Every structure is written in C-alpha cells, then in structure tokens.
C-alpha cells in the first residue's frame, strides 16, 4: 500500500542518511524516489556525495565506493528490524583498509549487542574479529574446522 511503502522508505532513508557520513567521512548520501508523485509505482535510487565531491548516482562511484554504499543500504534495512545475529559473506573484498575499519565501526556502533558472523579473506577484518574459525579441506571435498592464529 502507498502508506506502508512511504513509512518504510522514510525509515530506511533516515537510517541510510545516518550511516553514510560514517563510512564516507565528511560525505553524505540519501535515497531518492524516481517519481515522488506516484508512490505506488516509483522506483528508488541511491545518491552519494563522498567528501569533497559532488552528489551523484551510485553508478558513478568507484568500485569500493559502490560497495560501501550498497553495504550501508543493506545495513539501513537491517536496522529497521534487527535480528540478534547477522551473517556477512565476503562483503569487504573491494574495500581498502580504512574503509574496512569504518565498516566494522558501524557494526559495533549500531548493533553492539548483536552477533556478527563475517566470512572474509581480508587480514584487517580478521584482526578485528573477536573469535576466528578456519575452514579447510584436508581431505578433498570434506570440510574441516581448524583453530586459527593470527601472527
């Protein structure tokens, strides 16, 4: 219904606007409706302004900036009805070290009592984790959990 969409859009947009300046330091972002006059049919677009740059559509950002924007949208949706745990599979692969830090910081800030299970190849993310499990295959085709020590 028109009402329900407008309410949900408002909520996720408020969350998104709050998260963006934390992942784009000195920047901002928002969701916009492609047709504000038609709430039943309108589409939604992601607009982002990294620090010192202009407000632009997500498609004009760099690879890592796009990922950070999409992750922020997913997290903004998550915060509407947070679950006690959240699983993230390799969301950090296009992020540089500083953006990995910012990403983890928003996890800790917005959902301090949640559990996050994060699959990653990124050493920085591994350093930030409270617990680490390694999954390997000693015997081909058969998974095995091993303990992990970071140097």
């Amino acid at each position, binding site marked *: 219904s028109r009402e329900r969409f407008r309410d949900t*859009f408002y909520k996720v947009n408020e969350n998104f606007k709050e998260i963006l300046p934390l992942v784009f330091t000195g920047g901002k972002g928002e969701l916009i409706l492609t047709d504000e006059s038609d709430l039943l049919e309108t589409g*939604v677009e992601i607009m982002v302004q990294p620090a010192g740059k202009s407000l632009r559509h997500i498609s004009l950002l760099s690879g890592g900036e796009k990922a950070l924007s999409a992750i922020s949208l*997913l997290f903004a949706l998550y915060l509407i009805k947070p679950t006690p745990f959240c*699983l993230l599979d390799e969301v950090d692969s296009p992020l540089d070290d500083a953006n990995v830090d910012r990403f983890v910081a928003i996890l800790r800030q917005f959902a301090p009592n949640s559990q996050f299970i994060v699959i990653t190849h990124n050493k920085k993310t591994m350093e930030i984790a409270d617990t680490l499990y390694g999954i390997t295959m000693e015997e081909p085709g058969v*998974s095995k959990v091993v303990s992990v020590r970071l140097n």
Partner: protein
Amino acid sequence: MKIKAVDILGFKSFFKKTSLSFLPGITGLVGPNGCGKSNVVDAIRWALGEQSAKHLRGSLMEDVIFNGSREKKPLGMAEVSLTFANDNGNAPVQYKEFSEIEITRRVFRNGESEYYINKTACRLKDITELFLDTGVGAKAYSIIEQGRVDTIINSKPQELRMLIEEAA
C-alpha cells in the same frame, strides 16, 4: 535470541559432524577458496527454515546432502542444529523453562524432512512460529550472501523499490 552454536552433519561439504560455537561480538570465518565457508551460511539459512532452493545455491533440496567425494560415498541424510540462548523472554510459554532452545532440521534422500525443537519432533510450522515470536525469522537482511552487494549495486530503481517493500 543469540546463536550459541551450530552443528552441521552431512550438509553439503560437511561430511563429518562439525560444531561451531558463537560468542558475542564478531566471529570471523576464514580459509581457502572452496573449503566450505559459504556452506556454513547455507546451513544456518537452511536450519532457519529456508524453503526456496534458489537461496541455497542448488536446484533441489536434496542438493544439500553430502553428495560424495573422491574417497567418501554420498550420505543419505543432512542435519543442521542451531542452539539459541533463550534470553529475550519472547519465546512461547512452553519453552520458558529452557535456558537454551535447540532447533534441528533433517532431510533424507527420498525428500522427507524432519524437524525438532529441543530434540522433540515438531512441524516446520512450530519452528516458523517460534522464530516469528522471538524476532529471529527475518532472514532478508540478516544474511548477506556472497555476491549480494554486487546485486544491490546493479539493481534498477524498481528492484530497489522491491527490496524496500520487503522490509515493510
């Protein structure tokens, strides 16, 4: 309800019984390509009652049963158990006494499924209701599978609209 542990047996590449206990905070799952990390995500999603095969990277429900390796024959059953801390007071009254709630899902090669709560047989419906009451059920944004971020990046305005509608 926080997750305390997941036990995986016969599910995808987990031929042997595998247990992972989850503490508060951030748990990292690492390891080489192709070793089973995303399969752990699939196992948890499946145990939460995922019915759609397309969300489990397979075309048939039986695809989740260990289908053999060079040295091991295929298994006949897959089973995943999730143990939750019964800590938010929202669980249905019959579970009030339990400090933990364990849900188990099994599937057999013939397609039959079994469900258990604290080792007592139940229907899928009971598990779904338990999750609705305790706020665990909403899988849409609590599981971000490999490749999902790229899907969002490439989404058209109408697809983003649907994403938001699902959160209503």
